[in-house]
């Protein structure tokens, strides 16, 4: 009990001491909270996207075969499917029709996809929720698209895809095969790429290698590669991410450095007076420990909580301008929270511990000098 009471007395004194410098401490806590907030927001956002991708794309095609001509993705002849089907282990091969359409009216890019079984007759389309939001079009409206020969084709919107699937279908138009081919002028014997079903997933790499040998102008992409693409999405080494992260980390290093390199004259005088009044060196260090803990722990907890609200309650509003870029259609980033406790622990050890240590170190130097010398400066 005596130990607890001693700690409480020291904390009482520490808080009073902090309040005497309330302007400086408030600014310090605000910036510290902001740094934790930015770092935690990035961590929450990227891990939620990665986990969501790994769950959703688990049912992506096992192998996609593209044809490349002069370094560009080109239409693939459906006759390629015949020889690929003969490879041992391949269960089924089918052509996939999809492409992009730039709409000059809205300045937006759409992704047109032909489903295997499109339930509506030609002349009808199904649109994603992002497209619905940006164009204002809704069910039974006419949605004209310009075909490859310049003719306007009036499609009727038969359905809209729910907003819950925005993360995969925001910009999507589902269309019949007949309409797709007439819109883009694609002959019957061609598809955008081929998708394969494979009997044994362990054979994926062997089959991909054989396809490359039979058709050297093709590029097989396996499901593992698709999943790995999203495991490394928003990688910390990539472009803007490193700018945001390094800015935050450098700001934090400056803080810690400022603390570690010395105390203000006022703080030194305070330590001198305390020593003069009979405080032990260990008591002074304890006071500085509680000071560091009060600032860093409060900032850490507030920063993390604000980041959680930012990413999962306000759909990452502050990141929106960077994420939108030049996109006219963009998904509503209402992500499901996948919080990795290890990442939160890492953030704790990288922010709270160094700051607390940096607060104690210079105080130890001041607390071991003669009080008279410290007070005289």
């Amino acid at each position, binding site marked *: 009990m005596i130990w607890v009471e001693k700690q409480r007395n020291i904390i009482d004194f520490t808080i009073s001491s902090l309040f005497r410098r309330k302007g400086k401490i408030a600014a310090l806590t605000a910036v510290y909270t902001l740094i934790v907030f930015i770092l935690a927001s990035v961590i929450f956002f990227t891990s939620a996207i990665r986990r969501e991708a790994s769950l959703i*794309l688990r049912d992506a095609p096992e192998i996609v075969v593209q044809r490349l001509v002069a370094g560009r*993705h080109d239409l693939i002849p459906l006759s390629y499917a015949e020889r690929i089907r003969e490879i041992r282990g391949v269960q089924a091969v089918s052509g996939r029709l999809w492409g992009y359409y730039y709409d000059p009216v809205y300045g937006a*890019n759409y992704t047109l996809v032909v489903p295997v079984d499109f339930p509506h007759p030609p002349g009808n389309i199904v649109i994603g929720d992002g497209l619905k939001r940006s164009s204002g079009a809704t069910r039974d409206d006419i949605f004209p698209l310009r075909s490859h020969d310049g003719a306007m084709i009036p499609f009727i919107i038969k359905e809209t895809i729910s907003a819950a699937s925005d993360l995969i279908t925001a910009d999507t138009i589902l269309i019949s095969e007949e309409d797709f081919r007439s819109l883009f002028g694609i002959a019957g014997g061609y598809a955008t790429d081929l998708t394969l079903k494979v009997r044994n997933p362990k054979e994926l790499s062997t089959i991909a290698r054989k396809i490359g040998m039979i058709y050297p102008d093709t590029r097989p992409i396996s499901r593992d590669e698709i999943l790995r693409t999203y495991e490394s999405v928003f990688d910390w080494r990539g472009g803007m991410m490193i700018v945001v992260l390094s800015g935050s980390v450098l700001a934090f290093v400056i803080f810690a450095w400022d603390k570690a390199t010395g105390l203000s004259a006022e703080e030194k005088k305070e330590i001198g007076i305390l020593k003069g009044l009979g405080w032990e060196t260990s008591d002074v260090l304890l006071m500085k420990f509680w000071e560091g803990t009060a600032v860093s722990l409060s900032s850490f907890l507030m920063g993390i909580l604000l980041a959680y609200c930012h990413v999962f309650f306000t759909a990452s509003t502050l990141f929106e301008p960077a994420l939108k870029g030049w996109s006219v259609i963009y*998904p509503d980033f209402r992500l499901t929270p996948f919080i990795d406790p290890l990442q939160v622990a890492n953030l704790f050890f990288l922010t709270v511990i160094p700051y607390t240590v940096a607060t104690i170190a210079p105080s130890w130097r001041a607390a071991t000098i003669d009080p008279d010398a410290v007070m005289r400066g």
Partner: protein
Amino acid sequence: MSLRKSTLFFLFIALNTVLFAFMFVDASHRRASALPSFAEKRRFVKDLRLTDLCLFTDTRYTRHPSMADQFSPFQDHPFALEHFPSGSLLTPPPHLRLERRP
């Protein structure tokens, strides 16, 4: 009776810690209630044979990063530089960084 400063400090930290713990509870609850929506998205991916998330729509190599090739960001004209904002957020997929041809 006014509370001691140390009591106020511990109450503040305790409140934040409770909210911090609640954050994990809320995350778990949200994950459970998102299961039907995940099932629907997976059905879309399977039925439409989709390969990518719709994160960006300004350019094809960030709309479908897993389907992109090494040259797509630089295809606009000879000596073209990649210039879309979303290109600065996404790195090339790992399979493009590896030498994969036999």
